[in-house]
């Protein structure tokens, strides 16, 4: 070291001190150099550091300080001027930086300090919030527990269950060690341990009710901390550990048995139970205020729950009952109303029906009366009017044959004409009424069409010849001989039409033509509404009757077929028609699905009556037995039993004759006997059938039969024996069978019956019975 202007006297450098200084400086420098390194290292590590500039500054300051101390090492010994220069520079820089740093730190340090305070503040706040949240959570839990408890309670009615549930829930909510309920006894002098949480079957501990601690609890509505040593708290056997805090609260009781609906039960009954709650013994838990509040609330409410629940249930049940009743009443009312409506409706309907009934009855009676009157009328007509009238006709005609003066003759003629007219009228009216009734039905049967025309001709010829009219009949070759229809009415129609022609013609000729209507002729322009349709088993018969009489004017033609209508021209005729004939014909023709009309070119030009009717075509006549055949008279065709020799034994002359007539009609060769002796004498093997009457007393027909049987030993020679009897007694039949007769017929015998009997007999040789 050179000269230095020191105040103190110079002292020679001490080696030891110098050594220590040297070392210290070295270490200081080292430390000073390492600090920024550390700083840099840690700042780099940390994410946030807002004071980088400070760091740089500080780093520079430290580095320079370190450099200074480092350079100081060289100044311990003799050092050059360079070193001194460096040292000085370093020191100057260090001074500058350190002053700057010092100045800067004035700003920074308060900031840093405030950061620290804020940090502390935040930490406190966080701790506080944590606490509060814990609190809230607990409260929420508690609330949930209470709700669950309430729900549990509400879902049960049983008081026992409610209380037990309360304890359970409370225990769970508050994490209790034990929870017990002491109920007052009936006497009211003691509290009995009724429910506990942990212990299943609480033994019936009792404590007197008037203990001071109990009184204390009962007198306050709050939960009261009590000593664990208290009798009510000594529920469990004493454990090793210190029992936890115990709290007791009163539970107001309500008389649940006497309930009036309108009276809310007073809480002034002042009966309480005691609920004791114990915290776990080995925890340092304390009763918190909110927990106590919960306990108080629960205690207060539990019986109210029960009561309310009961009340609600009761009210609900009453309400439900009332509702049910109401509903059923309404139902009844509705039913009754509907019944009433229906009843009213039905009564109205019934009244209406009754009215209608009465009206209908009246109408029916009137109709019946009318019908009866008509029937009576018809009956009278039928029986009484016809017969005397026919007598009049017959006798008048006979009278005409006798000797008469001209005046008498005229009178008789008039009588005859009038009665004929009357007769026709009556018949026509009778027929017409039946036609109008709709009661007239055609008597369908197979008949000989040719015969009908021949018959008409036979009937009309006498009159026509008298009037000197020439009548001709033309039957078309394709006209079938037999047809199915109503023979009688067809004849009536033809007769009527032809009769009219004869009646209204004074001279000339009448021509009748009949043929099968072909399809092209079926449609007539004059009768557009008539559309006949021929088919396989039907044909249309067309009959035209042309006369050369007075004719009819065209305007009168439509009136012809209306009943009772008389035209001027018809009135002039002598033998006027009643006006019914054509009307009836029209009806008949309509019934036969046909059509009738009259054509005339005018007065004096004659007229033509044309009608078409539908007739059936009978089956081929090859078949041996045809149901319609019986109508065909057998006297026209081959006889049924030609030459069959029969013997008839009958005492009664008339009866004998009738039987003979029957058999002769059938073509038999009949021998008649009137006694059994004669019969036995006459009978021979030639006779094929013997008819004997067995109903005459005194004549033993049976005896004869036996004798005949004896006479003809061989079966094929013996004639068939048939009994004729008038009675239907079984004994007769048995007798006949007994004596060996072959058949029995009941008298009187019709032609058809006789025919069928004979054919059966001859075929089968036996017939029992044709009654």
């Amino acid at each position: 070291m050179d000269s230095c202007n020191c105040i103190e006297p110079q002292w020679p450098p001490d080696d030891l001190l110098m050594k220590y200084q040297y070392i210290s400086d070295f270490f200081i420098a080292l430390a000073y150099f390492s600090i920024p390194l550390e700083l840099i290292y840690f700042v780099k590590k940390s994410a946030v550091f807002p004071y980088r500039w400070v760091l740089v500054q500080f780093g520079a300051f430290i580095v320079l300080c370190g450099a200074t101390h480092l350079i100081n090492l060289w100044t311990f010994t003799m050092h050059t001027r360079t070193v001194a220069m460096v040292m000085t520079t370093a020191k100057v820089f260090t001074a500058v930086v350190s002053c700057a740093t010092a100045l800067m730190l004035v700003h920074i340090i308060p900031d840093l300090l405030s950061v620290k305070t804020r940090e502390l503040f935040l930490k406190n706040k966080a701790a506080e919030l944590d606490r509060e949240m814990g609190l809230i959570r607990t409260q929420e839990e508690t609330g949930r527990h209470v709700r669950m408890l309430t729900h549990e309670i509400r879902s049960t009615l049983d008081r026992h269950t409610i209380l037990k549930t309360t304890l359970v829930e409370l225990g769970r909510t508050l994490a209790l060690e034990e929870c017990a309920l002491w109920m007052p006894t009936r006497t009211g002098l003691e509290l009995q341990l009724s429910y506990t949480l942990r212990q299943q079957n609480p033994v019936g501990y009792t404590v007197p009710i008037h203990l001071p601690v109990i009184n204390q609890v009962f007198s306050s509505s709050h939960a009261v901390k009590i000593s664990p040593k208290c009798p009510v708290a000594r529920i469990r056997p004493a454990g090793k550990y210190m029992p936890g805090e115990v709290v007791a609260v009163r539970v107001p009781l309500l008389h649940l048995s006497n309930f009036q609906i309108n009276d809310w039960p007073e809480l002034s009954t002042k009966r309480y139970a005691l609920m004791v709650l114990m915290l776990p013994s080995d925890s340092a838990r304390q009763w918190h205020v909110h927990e106590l509040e919960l306990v108080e609330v629960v205690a207060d409410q539990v019986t109210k729950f029960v009561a309310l629940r009961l009340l609600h249930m009761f009210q609900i049940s009453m309400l439900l009952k009332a509702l049910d009743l109401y509903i059923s009443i309404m139902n009844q009312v509705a039913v009754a109303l509907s019944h009433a409506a229906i009843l009213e409706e039905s009564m109205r309907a019934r009244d209406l029906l009754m009215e209608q009934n009465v009206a209908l009855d009246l109408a029916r009676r009137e109709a019946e009366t009318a019908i009866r009157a008509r029937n009576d009328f018809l009956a009278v007509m039928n029986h009484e009017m016809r017969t005397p009238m026919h007598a009049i006709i017959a006798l008048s005609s006979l009278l005409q044959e006798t000797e008469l003066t001209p005046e008498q003759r005229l009178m008789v003629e008039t009588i005859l004409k009038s009665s004929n007219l009357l007769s026709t009228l009556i018949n026509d009216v009778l027929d017409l009424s039946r036609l109008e009734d709709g009661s007239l039905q055609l008597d369908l049967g197979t008949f000989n069409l040719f015969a009908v025309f021949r018959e008409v001709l036979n009937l009309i010829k006498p009159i026509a010849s008298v009037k000197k009219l020439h009548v001709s009949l033309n039957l078309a070759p394709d006209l079938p001989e037999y047809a199915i229809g109503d023979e009688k009415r067809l004849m009536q129609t033809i007769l009527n039409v032809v009769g009219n022609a004869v009646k209204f013609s004074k001279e000339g000729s009448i021509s009748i033509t009949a043929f099968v209507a072909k399809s092209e002729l079926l449609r007539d322009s004059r009768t557009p509404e008539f559309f006949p349709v021929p088919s396989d088993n039907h044909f249309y018969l067309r009959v035209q009757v042309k006369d050369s009489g007075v004719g009819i004017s065209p305007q009168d033609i439509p009136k012809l077929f209306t009943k009772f209508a008389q035209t001027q021209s018809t009135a002039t005729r002598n033998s006027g028609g009643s006006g019914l004939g054509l009307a009836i014909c029209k009806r008949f023709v309509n019934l036969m699905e046909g059509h009738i009309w009259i054509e005339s070119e005018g007065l004096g030009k004659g007229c033509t009556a044309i009608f078409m009717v539908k007739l059936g075509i009978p089956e081929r006549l090859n078949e041996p037995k045809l149901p319609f055949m019986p109508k065909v008279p057998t006297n026209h065709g081959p006889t049924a039993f030609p030459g069959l020799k029969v013997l008839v034994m009958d005492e009664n002359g008339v009866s004998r004759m009738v039987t003979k007539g029957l058999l002769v009609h059938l073509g038999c060769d009949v021998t008649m006997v009137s006694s059994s002796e004669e019969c036995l004498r006459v009978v021979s093997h030639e006779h094929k059938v013997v008819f004997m009457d067995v109903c005459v007393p005194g004549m033993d027909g049976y005896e004869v039969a036996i004798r005949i049987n004896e006479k003809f030993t061989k079966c094929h020679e013996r004639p068939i024996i048939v009994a004729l009897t008038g009675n239907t007694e079984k004994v007769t039949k048995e007798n006949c069978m007994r004596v060996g007769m072959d058949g029995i017929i009941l008298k009187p015998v019709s032609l058809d019956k006789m025919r069928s009997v004979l054919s059966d007999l001859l075929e089968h040789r036996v017939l029992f019975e044709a009654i």
Partner: protein
Amino acid sequence: MWHGIDMYSLVYSFGFVPCACEHQGIVDDQFTQLRKLEDENSPHFVMEVASLFFEDCEKLINNMAIALEQKQGVDFKQIDECIHQLKGSSSSIGAMRVKNACIAFRSFSDGQNREGCLRCLQQLSHEYSLLKNKLQTLFRLEKEIVAAGGSIPRVH
């Protein structure tokens, strides 16, 4: 000769005499059957049978009348026989009312009731005359029609 007589009406009305008879029950279907037997071979069959019947009937009725008048005692057996005969005849010809009267008569004769029998006999006579009347009219009509050249419609 028939002057202006409506033969048609006559013939037409002829058909109704037997109808009327049948309607009134004087004859029944058996009579119609007999009429069916008339044909060209036996054109007067019905008339013949009827004549026979009339003879028979009159005889029997007379017999019965005599028998019932017997003072010493009525021979009911004979009456019974007569009734039986008459019944047979009347049923053969189809005289329904006569037959029914016979049946009624029989019950009285079985009971040997003289009074009843007399009444029945009277009834029987009455029925018989009625029938005879009708039939004779019919036959006369027939005769007249045939004589006039007409023909009788046959019954089929």
